[in-house]
């Protein structure tokens, strides 16, 4: 999608779907689509974002499987006193698929769109200029902070022992200490940046004039299709919710209730 507005709206659609969908199959399809989009962007940051989100997803599934406290629960694997609960794994899977879909979609947007284009798109989508600029500036400094963290790590490695030559708790303490210079640098930069913006006439209440840009036809077509699909899913979920909670029951909608409970 060539227009940044399209990408922003697609990410919003993914966020909405990740919230309303409940079935692992549907969430898997959504997460897979977002993973493919992220991989299509390419670059080491996209791989890092993917690995990080998959790592967190895996940890969520395992921890929910082990520590699920709800009842009833069925053991999936039993190793002496330790059990992995089927319901816990399913719950963890749903939560982590939501996380993977949202994170990968957001990362794909951030990595495929320059901050200036993103700020412009947000303003065109009627997001207040101050909020757009703030969000985009924060985003711009994520790779800077990551690269600084890496520099600090290298500086420390030059002066000390290798990381693996430490006890796990010492390693953890050393890793945490790395955040100190990165945070100090970020604070110093934030102050300098704020002053620079102020002196250069930045006013959060006045958006800079941007030339009108036509929305490409292909983008409009994709957005129309995705929008219709999301609306249909949200409507079906809402109708099923009213039925499940005993508010409204329409016999003609039984196929819809069935579809939602099986697939969505």
């Amino acid at each position, binding site marked *: 999608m060539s227009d940044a507005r399209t990408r922003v709206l697609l990410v919003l659609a993914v966020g909405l779907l990740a919230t309303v969908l409940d079935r692992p199959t549907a969430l898997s399809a959504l997460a897979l689509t977002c993973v493919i989009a992220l991989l299509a962007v390419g670059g080491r940051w996209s791989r890092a974002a993917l690995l990080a989100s998959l790592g967190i997803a895996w940890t969520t599934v395992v921890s929910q499987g082990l520590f699920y406290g709800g009842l009833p629960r069925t053991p999936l694997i039993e190793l002496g006193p330790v059990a992995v609960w089927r319901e816990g794994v399913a719950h963890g899977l749903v939560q982590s698929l939501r996380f993977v879909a949202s994170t990968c979609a957001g990362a794909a947007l951030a990595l495929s769109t320059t901050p200036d284009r993103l700020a412009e798109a947000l303003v065109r989508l009627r997001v207040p200029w101050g909020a757009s600029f703030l969000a985009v500036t924060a985003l711009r400094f994520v790779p800077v902070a990551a690269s600084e963290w890496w520099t600090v790590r290298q500086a420390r490695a030059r002066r000390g022992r290798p990381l693996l030559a430490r006890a796990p708790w010492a390693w953890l303490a050393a890793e945490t200490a790395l955040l100190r210079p990165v945070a100090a640098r970020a604070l110093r930069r934030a102050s300098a940046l704020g002053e620079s913006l102020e002196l250069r006439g*930045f006013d959060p209440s006045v958006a800079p004039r941007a030339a009108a840009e036509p929305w490409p036809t292909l983008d409009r077509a994709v957005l129309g299709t995705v929008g219709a699909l999301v609306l249909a899913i949200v409507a079906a979920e809402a109708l099923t919710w009213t039925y499940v909670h005993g508010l409204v029951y329409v016999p003609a909608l039984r196929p819809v209730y069935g579809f939602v409970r099986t697939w969505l």
Partner: protein
Amino acid sequence: MIRVEASWVRSSDSAELGPFRLTLGRGERVLISGPSGAGKSTLLSLLSGGLARHGRGRVVGEVRIDERDPATMPPAERPSCLGVVPQEPGDALVAGTVADEVAFGPRCAGLTELERRVGEALERAGCRVDRGRDPRELSTGERQRVVIAGALAAGAPVLLLDEPLAFLDPAGAEALLRELAALSEVGVTVVVAEHRVRTVLPWCTRHVALRDGVVVADGAPGASPPEPDALPLAPPAEEVVLRVDGVDEPRAPGLRDLSVELRAKERVAVLGANGVGKSTLLRALAAGSPDRIEVPADPDLTLFCGTVREELAYGPTERRLPGAMEHVIRVARALRIEHLLDRAPHASSRGERLRIAVAAALCTRPAVLLLDEPTAGQDEAAVERLFAGLRELVPDAAVIFATHDPGVARRHAHRTIVLGER
């Protein structure tokens, strides 16, 4: 015209100024000099109105630029009223491309003909980089030129520049001063706070000297102070402690199949224009052996401990060097940071942070010490003290440093490596 009358000024980092009265006329070229901590940056912040805004400081007195208070001026009018170049050029960048960065101020001010303004400002600042590049990817000197171009682009009648030459090569510094002189000819008031007094004195029409927050001299520029005496260097040993062949970096025009050899006790200066590859060369030389310690141009990212004492002790403790704590005290004393030992490294001033980073490197007793721009933003006395400390503390180590100051290279190096486009 700028008029300042202040009986007392205090910035958020506790720097104090005053009492003083200063009136700067149209077209004046003013040099503000003074040792680190004298109040140069605080004075510029006062002139720009920054100190009086958002509780960044307290001002008892008033500042007027053409009878208007810069602190209460509407944001959109500021870029057309005054241009400011801050001390840390990298931190002031707000846009994703060089062109957008330079156009930011004029765009906020609602000015037109942005493309022409950007082109002219880049030309005046001597910035010849691709306009589509991300300014964060540029070298420190190139970033500084971009920030200067951003300050020039809105055509403000007053320019305030905080150490604009700190990261510029001599040719770049001369060219920038020529451009600033040309601007003053058409009525722009240019105020430069700078440590490189010898370079700026012939350029300025007025010299304001500060000490401990008070104006100690104000008038026509006098003669340049003499260069400090060069103390004789101990001759290099025969033992080669570093040899690197085939240093090649496509993005650094000065690095094409370069070979470097360093001997014990040898002092080598690396000179060259901005962006030619000095920092890249130092990084390449530092790689591969724990006996080579590099202090980068931004020393903040090498300081990760809770106190300066822990910072200095980290290397020797990790390496289990004998007599670590005694050595820490000795190094701290030599570099005059003994009073900071129990403070957090990041709570210190920029010059102090550099000395802490160098001290931390020295405490590991490296065979090769690599310093990237150790003179940038430092007053001459601090630079001389730093090199005196190196002579005393690591007499046997090879030291290689990148600098833009040929005088420092002459006084403190056996030989120089000059990088140029190849």
